């Protein structure tokens, strides 16, 4: 079969590190170069009983990105843990 019979489809998966003041699920800072174990808490350490609390600024950034790309913003999103 000639190459011209094939249509290339190329997807771009882009990861962008968000410039939020704190982590996505807790209030710990993310300052580059800080000494080890100084920007951790029970949540990001996954201690027993800890629960994630979603960073509002991260959600706002996601909405901005969605709008910039002309996407529809879902009114309701749910979490599904990847096992």
């Amino acid at each position, binding site marked *: 079969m000639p190459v011209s019979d094939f249509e290339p489809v190329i997807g771009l998966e882009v990861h962008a590190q968000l410039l939020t003041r704190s982590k996505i699920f807790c209030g710990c800072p993310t300052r580059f170069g800080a000494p080890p174990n100084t920007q951790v808490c*029970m949540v990001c*350490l*996954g*201690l*027993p*009983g*800890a*629960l*994630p*609390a*979603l960073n509002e600024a991260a959600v706002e950034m996601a909405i901005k990105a969605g709008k910039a790309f002309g996407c529809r913003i879902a009114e309701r999103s749910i979490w599904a*843990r990847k*096992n």
Partner: protein
Amino acid sequence: MKADLLPLSGISDALASGQVSPEALLEASLERIRALDARLHAFLRLTEVEARTAAKASAQRRKSKKPLGALDGVPVALKDIFCMEGVETTCGSKILRGYVPPYDATVVRKLKQAGAVIVGKLNMDEFAMGSSTENSAFGPTMNPWDLARTPGGSSGGSAAAVAARMVAGTLGTDTGGSIRQPAAMVGCAGMKPTYGRVSRFGVIAFASSLDQVGPFAQDVRGVAYLLTAIAGHDPNDQTSSTRPVPDYAAALDKGVRGLRIGVPAEYFGEGLAPEVEKAVRAGVEKLRAQGCEIREISLPNSPHAIATYYIVATAEASSNLARYDGVRYGHRAKANQLLEMYEKTRAEGFGAEVKRRIMLGTYALSAGYYDAYYLRAQKVRALIRRDFDQAFAAVDAVLSPTSPTTAFQLGEKMDDPLAMYLNDVYTVPANLAGLPGISIPAGFDSKDLPIGLQLIGKPFEEETLLRIARSAEPSQHRAPPIVEGR
């Protein structure tokens, strides 16, 4: 009656009137624990030093003549699932033996703020998985009414400590009935609030969409005091509701005239012990005599509740227990390689029932089985919730037995996990539907074993539920013979 034998609200009144001091109550509590706990094993550890400090501080506040909250100076204890800063918290498991949390659970902080005197941590089924407290890695708790029987589970220690008058109130957790069923087994009151009413931050997780923290006390008023103290929004738990918390005790004695109670046919069928049915039906008549309208209702998807629960709960547990790997805290097995360390740590640290449920949950979520099991279970869960929504269009509360039988013998159901799971048949639906439920004492069977009656309410209408429970609870609270030294 000596103050320490009174139900929680009586103890609260005795403190307010100056009849008894917080220190005297604490001494009475510690003395009863010393006298009984070698036989009951309700406690895993005592927090005597912290308790004495708290009792002294409470006495100081009382001296200042300021009006104090209902729990100020009241001795309480906590299921070992609640993180308490500086105090070993094991969740009933060897994998967390020696683990000392660096923080208080939100509900622990709230109880401390309310002036409650925390006496110790209570025994439980490992990771809250069980209906008898026999799955504790540290030995079972005995039922104060018959030491050869279980107090139910998983909050067996919390129930036994109240029934044996060791403390006035306790906290437990309820994922599939783990507060209500033990309350029924030992003859006290135990409540699971609406999902989201109480913060789960600092509560070691079993199944995140089902777990709820709740109070035990001998009396409904005591349960109401505890619920008022622990309920409320917590920014650390984004599943917690922002609805305001009323004073749950305020309207307790308003009576129940005109309220409609639904009695579901599906909860009175095969497997229900005749003496339990008789006592629960007598409870129905007691409410009818006080002016309630009684209606026969149907919750047709009830027979699917246990299967749904044991897929959803185990799936969520397999995720929540993945963190126990020996790296950051808890037990770490000796090994030469990382994978070996993970495997040996979990093999050594987890008990048989925990392993069983992790495997079930992992299977239900695995590729090729996710749709058939987990996804389908979530759909059936929605049907179970819809049954209740439809029922609540016509009634204000649903009434049923809490458990199909009274307390069973230690060892009786350990060889048959499915037989053990069937203890929860009347309690799991409220967890699946996120509804508040309470068990109250409703008499005794011919072996003098307590019988529990369950009431399930509309979401966030704990006030109404507690009001009905108040009208249905016994006027006298007989203590188990072991308390009087018999």
